């Protein structure tokens, strides 16, 4: 059974009289423990697709199932869409985000940043601390736990963000240009880390415009004009 099923997804923006079709009928299935990269020129709809998969955005039309849960149902009158708070819970429990700009909270220590998803998930303090520490150890940052983001290098910041994405044992890890703000050496370190997460059994969806990074995945989806242009699975 597929982990993620997108069925006939449309995302249409109305800007004045002009109708912009960011997604124009997308169908994707992703299996558990797949490693998918999404490529495409800017404006092709790859970010919109990521936002819908990440439950940050809701489709104008179409159906979305994640981990056996119906998140959006394809119905004509547009009902069957999850509420903001329901989406928040799904984001909290099923999805781990890794952003291009890290998006760590600057006033908090690395440890506290990693704890955040657990705080919103209502995990008790002692367990929270233990799991956050374990996640930081997994990204080899145990010694930087009590540093704030501005005391860390770019690569270290992104590793904190990876730990934060992992800490809730999500169904999918979504990485949106995770190496976009890093030099090539650090990019390789981070990608090795993400490769490892895949080997450990995680499902990963990666948006990138760099071919060598996309090639690390075992499936590459090319998007163009709001549609899937190519979908290549490696053996």
């Amino acid at each position, binding site marked *: 059974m597929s982990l993620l099923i997108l069925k006939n997804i449309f995302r249409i923006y109305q800007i004045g009289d002009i109708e912009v079709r960011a997604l124009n009928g997308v169908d994707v299935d992703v299996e558990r423990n797949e490693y998918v990269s999404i490529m495409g020129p800017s404006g092709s709809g790859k970010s919109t697709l990521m*936002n819908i998969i990440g439950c940050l*955005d809701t489709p104008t039309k179409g159906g979305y199932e994640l981990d056996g849960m119906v998140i959006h149902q394809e119905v004509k009158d547009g009902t069957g869409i999850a509420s903001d708070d329901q989406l928040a819970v799904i984001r909290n429990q099923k999805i781990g985000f890794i952003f291009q700009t890290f998006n760590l909270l600057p006033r908090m220590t690395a440890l506290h940043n990693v704890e*955040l998803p657990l705080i919103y998930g209502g995990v008790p303090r002692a367990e929270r601390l233990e799991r956050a520490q374990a996640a930081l150890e997994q990204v080899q940052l145990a010694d930087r736990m009590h540093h704030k983001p501005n005391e860390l290098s770019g690569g270290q910041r992104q590793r904190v963000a990876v730990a934060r994405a992992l800490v809730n044992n999500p169904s999918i890890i979504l990485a949106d240009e995770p190496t976009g703000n890093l030099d090539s050496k650090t990019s390789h370190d981070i990608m090795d880390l993400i490769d490892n997460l895949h080997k450990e059994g995680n499902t990963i969806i990666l948006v990138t415009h760099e071919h060598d990074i996309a090639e690390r995945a075992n499936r590459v989806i090319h998007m163009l004009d709001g549609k899937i242009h190519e979908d290549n699975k490696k053996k």
Partner: protein
Amino acid sequence: MDFKEIYLSARSSIRQNRLRSFLTLLGVVIGIFSIIGVMTAINVLQQTVEDNMGGLGAGTFQVQKYPNMNMGNTRWRYHNRKNLDYRDFKRLQERLVIVDYATAEDWNYGKILRYKDKETKPNIVVAGITHNWEFTNNLKIDMGRMITQLDEKNGSHVIVLGYDVLDVLFPNRNPIGEAIKIDGVKYRVIGVSERKGQQFGQSQDNRSYIPLTTYFKYYGQASFTSLNYCFTVVDQDQFEEGMQEVINELRIIRGDKFGEENSFETWTNASLIDNFNKMTAAIKIAAGIIASIALLASGIGIMNIMLVTVSERTREIGVRKSLGAKRRDILYQFMLEALILTEMGGVIGIAIGVLAGNIVALLLKISVVFPWDWAIIGIVVCSAIALIFGSYPAYKAASLDPIEALRYE
């Protein structure tokens, strides 16, 4: 999300912007300070007025020519009234049935008392009193005895001293039986009244008491000055009847015509406190208005600063939402931040207000008060401000679209 986390996050963001937070809560401080300061000062005065009445027991009331507390310059209205004199007092005393103790008194200020080569400062108050005065005025005797009916009848030259006199004229020795002089007239010391300490920064021990009849010989005839009459009804249930009895009898003695108002004033502790409260009510209302305006302004300041905070932290809100924060989590976070900010201002305002209000107490050397009721009202008002003015910014934060918020630069 537990409140400790929200609290820590709110506190760290307030600390991040120390100056801005301080300026914002200054408004709250001023508002709360003005109300607490005035209320504390009034409470101090009230406490003192009540303490000061300690002399007049619960079952006691006074009769005077002039009202005790006078709003406006209306003294002339009472000036033409006939003085309350000793002859009327004696006639009244004979007629009273319900009233247990009736006394009359007059005061003469700035006297010097001499014993051999020693003399006091010219600040001694000499009171001419009738017997039983210790009952109507709650006066306690430390040594010797009080003025008796016989002293009053004979116009004896006897005196009861306060401790201020004793400390100067008879340090560390028993004065009973010694002869002292006031204005060249000799008096025999028969008693010493209990030490009372200070009130309104004034010594209460500078009084000395002589029989009223003796007093008249040297300090004016009964017709020149108007006396204070003082009455005590021991049985509380009879107090109203006792007061009515005095009023009725005194009207007859003084020839007040039917339908005219009394040609004298009566007052009790309760009526005095009542008058005081009427006077302070106006001050309280003024303080309330000033504080309301200051608090309204500070509420707007808080709303403004919270809106700035929300827009500065749009991205943070986006990140929190992407990690699973619900609307409620964001709402609570910003509400609590507004609440902490205003409560900090409130607590500082209460502290400064109580200190400032008690400066009155320190100046008058009377006991310090802490107005618990107003402090609690202050905290409640601060919470209300935080809720009213913090809710819109917090609502705005909670309603942000996560994608827009994450893209915000």
